[in-house]
């Protein structure tokens, strides 16, 4: 068993855990924004910064992102300090200046004692805080339909070959690799990714999708692209995905019944 110091307390951890995981396991809160336990760590928001040092570092310390820093034996970690509060508040201040009207950042600002940003608001704000959750979830699902484009202050997220960077050639479908699973929109903390989802179909990233219905009960299942992708990814036959979970359950019941009946007669 490994152990390290967390806010002056000796805690155990398992090899491969990050500081954030160790802190959460010990009910020490650390604020996060771009972190999702199911996705690869990104380290972009810097809200989860903590201070680490070691006895042999002779007073030297560094600020690291807890979501990425690997826990290590004899590490001394502090999750709260005046410096950390100031740093986190400045990070939130910067995000609030980026998205001054977005309810999510406004609420975040309030949590950190900021009624409004002390900095100049972005000239043409949108709701994107560039946390990268959408890109990572899309990659995890295996669609790789969206990614970051451009860089620095101009960085944005979206499907390829999309305006405003340049004119998409006519005839080229928007968001070609998107499967319409809506995971990106679901995970987006600020609601920046707009979509429509109803019985008639789905719309996201400027692209419209049909919705496949359950072959027996008509319940909406997902887009054909989504089901194709699931079939390819799981190696299962595509037919398999034509029924909803409720109808599959009924099928299972029927199959059991016949099995039991069959045994009864034999």
């Amino acid at each position, binding site marked *: 068993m490994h152990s390290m110091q967390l806010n002056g307390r000796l805690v155990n951890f398992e090899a491969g855990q990050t500081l954030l995981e160790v802190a959460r396991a010990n009910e020490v809160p650390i604020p996060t924004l771009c972190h999702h336990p199911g996705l690869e760590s990104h380290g972009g928001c810097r809200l989860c910064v903590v201070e680490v040092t070691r006895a042999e570092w002779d007073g030297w310390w560094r600020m690291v992102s807890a979501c990425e820093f690997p826990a290590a034996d004899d590490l001394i970690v502090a999750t709260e300090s005046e410096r950390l509060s100031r740093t986190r508040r400045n990070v939130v201040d910067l995000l609030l200046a980026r998205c001054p009207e977005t309810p999510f950042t406004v609420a975040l600002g309030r949590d950190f004692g900021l009624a409004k940003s002390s900095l100049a608001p972005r000239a043409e704000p949108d709701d994107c805080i560039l946390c990268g959750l959408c890109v990572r979830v899309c990659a995890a699902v295996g669609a790789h339909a969206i990614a970051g484009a451009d860089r620095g202050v101009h960085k944005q997220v979206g499907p390829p070959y999309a305006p405003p960077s340049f004119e998409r050639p006519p005839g080229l479908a928007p968001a070609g690799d998107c499967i319409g699973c809506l995971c990106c929109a679901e995970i987006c903390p600020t609601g920046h990714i707009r979509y429509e989802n109803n019985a008639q179909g789905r719309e996201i990233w400027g692209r419209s999708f049909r919705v496949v219905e359950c072959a027996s009960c008509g319940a909406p299942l997902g887009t054909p692209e989504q089901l194709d992708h*699931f079939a390819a990814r799981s190696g299962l036959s595509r037919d398999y995905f034509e029924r909803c979970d409720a109808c599959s359950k009924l099928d299972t019941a029927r199959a059991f019944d016949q099995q039991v009946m069959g045994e009864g007669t034999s």
Partner: protein
Amino acid sequence: MSEAKRLFVTPGRCIGCRGCEIACAFAHPVRRPGGHRPSDQPGKSRIRTFPMSAERHVPVVCLQCEEAACQAVCPTGALQRNEASGAIEVLTERCVRCMMCVVACPFGNVHDEPAMREIVKCDLCGGDPACAKFCPTAALEYAVRPTRNPPPKPLHSVAGGTRGQMAGAVSTTGPSVR
């Protein structure tokens, strides 16, 4: 492993009272998105009994397959087996609701719960399944081995053979007889 408890289903004993469904729903109350405390409102039942005729009823609940399709397709590792109870549980904080597990389960035992924005499935109530407790006829039994005669067939062996055309395609599934 031979001494681990499992959920046995004996359709022949089911009388279709649907007590299991109610027990399940109350054992898994609704958690509002973002809310940490469960509400009083019953949630979606993960077990369902289907009437096949006036006399015959079949309860269907997750088999906790040994090589589970739902777990295999999950892109974020959100489905993990609880080694203590043997149940495959949804680690909600890791889940991105991509629905792959819902469609991948050949038996229809993984569900989306839009009200809770969560994926739900049978978790054996952490090792003390409410459905079995409330079953008046022992059609559902949580035990090391079935307790009554005639000994019912474990569900697992039944499942393997029935939806064979599907199970065959699911190389990762194939529930096996223990």
